[in-house]
């Protein structure tokens, strides 16, 4: 088993998280992220063959909500926490169009 991640692996994860990292950080994360992964991997040692797949921290099934309109926020409230706005829109640096 290798003792650290490759630089490409770390850069890939950084890219998915949309963060920039320095060369120094890159080297340290190669080791730190690997340690983290190894810790999480210990979960795989548990014998769970006879255990149901639990997705939520309680056993009840979902309850449903009636389809009737409830309280909504005033657009002024919505825009209060945004650093930049344009009219009633929240403004962010341009992203490549997915549309």
């Amino acid at each position, binding site marked *: 088993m290798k003792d650290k991640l490759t630089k490409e692996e770390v850069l890939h994860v950084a890219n*998915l*998280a*949309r963060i920039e990292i320095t060369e120094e950080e890159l080297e340290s994360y190669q080791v730190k992220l690997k340690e983290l992964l190894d810790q999480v991997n210990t979960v795989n040692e548990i014998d769970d063959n006879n255990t149901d797949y639990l*997705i*939520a*921290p*309680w*056993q*009840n*099934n*979902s*309850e*449903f*909500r*009636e*389809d*009737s*309109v*409830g*309280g*909504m*926020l005033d*657009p002024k409230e*919505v*825009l209060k926490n945004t650093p*930049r706005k*344009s*009219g*009633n*829109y*929240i*403004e*962010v*640096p*341009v*992203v*490549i*169009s*997915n*549309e």
Partner: protein
Amino acid sequence: MTKYIETIGIEVHVELKTNTKIFSSSKNGYGQMANSLTNVIDLGYPGTLPTINMEVINTAIKAAHVLNCKIRKTQHFDRKNYFYPDNPKNYQITEARTPIGYDGYVEIEIDGEKKKIEIEEIHIEEDTCKSAHRGKVSLLDFNRAGVPLIEIVTKPCISTSLEAKLYLEKLRELLFYSDISDCKMEEGSMRADANVSIRKNITDPFGVKCEIKNIGSISNVKLAIECEIKRQSNLLDKGESFKEQTRRFDDKLGDTVLMRVKETGNDYRYFPEPDIPYIVLTDEVINSAIKSLPMLPDERREIYISKGVSLVNANKLIANRDLSDYLNNFIDTDLNFKEATNLLLGDISAYLNREEKNINDTKLTIEKFSDLVNKISDNTLTSKNLKDILDKILEEDKTIDEIIKECGISNITDSNMLNDIVLKIISENPDSVTDYKNGKDRALKYLMGQIMKETKGSANPKLVSDILIQELNK
């Protein structure tokens, strides 16, 4: 014709017609002031919890049923993780592992041959916020965030761009009729992506797949697929290879344009959504959703045709849901459907379009419509009479008989009186009589026209025709 075998799969996102969003009680609406239909759940504030809208589940069950899918009784949601401003939680809640519907099909008809387009799965998910790109900034509107969607994924079983178009048309008709979605591609409530690949031989593995995202209309889906196949063919012809990628269709350019080389499925790091426990559907819930479905287009078409309506008119009726629903009130009666359809698609549609009204906003009760159709079928009313009184019929509470009386419509059905007029016209037009006897049909029409003119259009045409032929053959 290309020398390659085309393989096409289609993914369609459809916004569901519910009152509220999937995980919050904010209104599900279109065309409202930006960021006016939101609450803390839609905006992804920390500490908020999603709750499932019952109607989303019902509507998705209906969709699964009309697309002939098997329905999964135990489902859960997953988080699809990605960082993008359209989704402040940094994950989209979606049914990645347990789609509500699977193994279905939609039947299309090509040149009289039926083909089943296989549906791989239907899953429920939330829509993201809508972003508009303006120069150096993007503008976000969260009214769309959390609008319920279903994604319908076909198997890679579509072989031509025409099949893709027919599939989408059929899908839209089905979903629209089932009240699942209003399916407006121009408003984004139905959005299509096409996965396209080509290969040389049927025994080869599938070629490299390119996905064309968010195509704006059904006709553009057909065009986009054709352009993409041409592009891939040209590359393979030259011996070049290409990577799996996402493209978009530029209709001004008439070609597909590269957006990005694809992130792989793993990059989304799916894991179960711990805030939403298992969804378990009872038979009762499933059956009651299915029971609430209205009659679907294929069944309507079959009934109309069996009652003497032409295929063209049956399709026109189905394209106008309100008229079709109205006519369905008479399915169990012996109403003349052919005449009724002509009336609905003709004079009544003209009135509704002119007045920008819906048939349900008129005074045309079921009893009145049935009376009207009968009076036209037995020639009590002529088409000219109808034009004179239709507005009154549609706008006033009176019965047809009352309106006829009030308007002084004296539809001449007195055969003695008609007989005199017929004889007069015959004696005034000896040349036409000779022409008729020499087998010229046109002469009969001319004489009919003269009689109708003489009676100012108020004669019963069937009666005139009978008397005229009788007299001419004497």
